[in-house]
């Protein structure tokens, strides 16, 4: 038995640079911490973050890239984690809402949402804040229109967006 296994292992090592599998071994950096996991190929990135890493701040809304609740930063750009497989993120650098807080202190965008009543039920908020984070990184001084355009991929069914826009403007002032 041991002999046969080692032969097979040797063959595998030679022929397959991209190993096919329903299971993948991935390494990702999330909020500055390195993780290694075995995941099913079909596992969505949002499920990996929530269920494997326990980072439940990233919400799963629609699964079809409509609502934006699952927005995270992947290699520095905002993406929707429900339309990526965890396996695809191998080698990637991810920031989630949990990564914005430093030493128990809310990030200025988080505080601005609090101060300006930028949320009601809070379901869309993590995605909204991650998208705002990216938006303000790209454009530190956005106009109202640029803010609305920038968050058009994030749905909020409570606020009517007025206070969200107000929060992002306040955060932009704070961050400048």
């Amino acid at each position, binding site marked *: 038995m041991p002999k046969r296994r080692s032969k097979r292992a040797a063959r595998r090592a030679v022929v397959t640079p*991209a190993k096919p599998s329903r299971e993948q071994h991935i390494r990702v950096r999330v909020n500055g911490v390195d993780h290694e996991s075995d995941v099913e190929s079909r596992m969505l990135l949002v499920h990996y973050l929530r269920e494997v890493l326990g980072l439940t701040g990233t919400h799963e809304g629609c699964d079809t*890239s409509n609502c934006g609740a699952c927005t995270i930063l992947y290699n520095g*750009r905002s*993406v929707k984690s*429900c339309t990526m497989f965890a396996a695809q993120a191998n*080698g990637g650098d991810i920031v989630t809402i949990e990564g914005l807080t430093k030493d128990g202190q809310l990030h200025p965008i988080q505080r601005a949402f609090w101060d300006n009543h930028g949320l009601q039920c809070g379901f869309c908020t993590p995605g909204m804040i991650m998208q705002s984070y990216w*938006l303000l990184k790209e454009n530190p001084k956005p106009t109202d229109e640029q803010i609305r355009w920038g968050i058009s991929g994030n749905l909020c069914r409570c606020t009517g967006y007025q206070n969200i826009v107000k929060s992002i403007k306040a955060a932009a002032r704070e961050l400048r």
Partner: protein
Amino acid sequence: MMNKPFDYFAPKSISEAVSLLKKHGSGAKLIAGGQSLVPLMNLGLAAPRQIIDLTHIKKDSLSYVKLDKDSLMIGSMTTHSAVENSPQIRRHCRILSETAMTIADVQVRNRGTIGGSVCHADPAGDYLAPLVAVDAEFRAINPKRKVRTISADKFFVDIFTTALKRDELLTEIRVPKRPSTRNGSAYVKHKYVEGGFAIVGAAAVVSVNKDGICDRAKVVLSGVSTRPVRVDMIEKEFRGENLDERAIEEAGRIVREAVHDPLSDIHASADYRREMAVVFAKRALRLALARSRKTGAQHN
């Protein structure tokens, strides 16, 4: 809902990707940005047996924007965000940047790619009409490393169907460069929500001579049929004509006839689509014409 299990491959090179495609045949699916495929899988509408991920191919081999003296070359893995913001595309093919801007939202544009979008060939996809209108060419490679060039007009065959063979991979989209003056183009679309799919998408490309007479006028429509609709009559009728408001009304009549059998679905009835095709084709023509009359590259 949990997706059906599949084998995942992350090839590091184009040749490795095409040989995987050949090996696994029709059950395999290439994934570029995944912004159409993953939602379809999550909804249970697609269940590939193998997924071949192109995002781990060494970045520069398929994600680029380059220029030579005749054409603009866009790698198939270039994201919509990059198409939207590339200074070269803005300068030499403004209509494509304008089109990329109207796709979905920032997050989707950060991940979705031009190649993925055209290979998905959703009739309501935004790139279809503009790429046909600017006479784009598509380059594909097969496992024998043979490169084939397909014109945009021939590339889109039917609903979700392209001219690519099963073992071919789209590598590049080429757009012929036009002089920066007296050329204008525009893409406008009718949608229900910001970033929504095109109920009707109208692309117009216009060239005028120094007296303002039309050398070329092309109108192509997305969303109205199973493939982009080229309104050939406009190309024929308008050469050598002065494109005034009366001509634009005439173009509207030609569009109404050209769209003889429009799609009818939950979003719009056939009659409504035909009417909107007329309205949006005229808007695209007016805008392209106005741009052609301004000099300067930024209006091209």
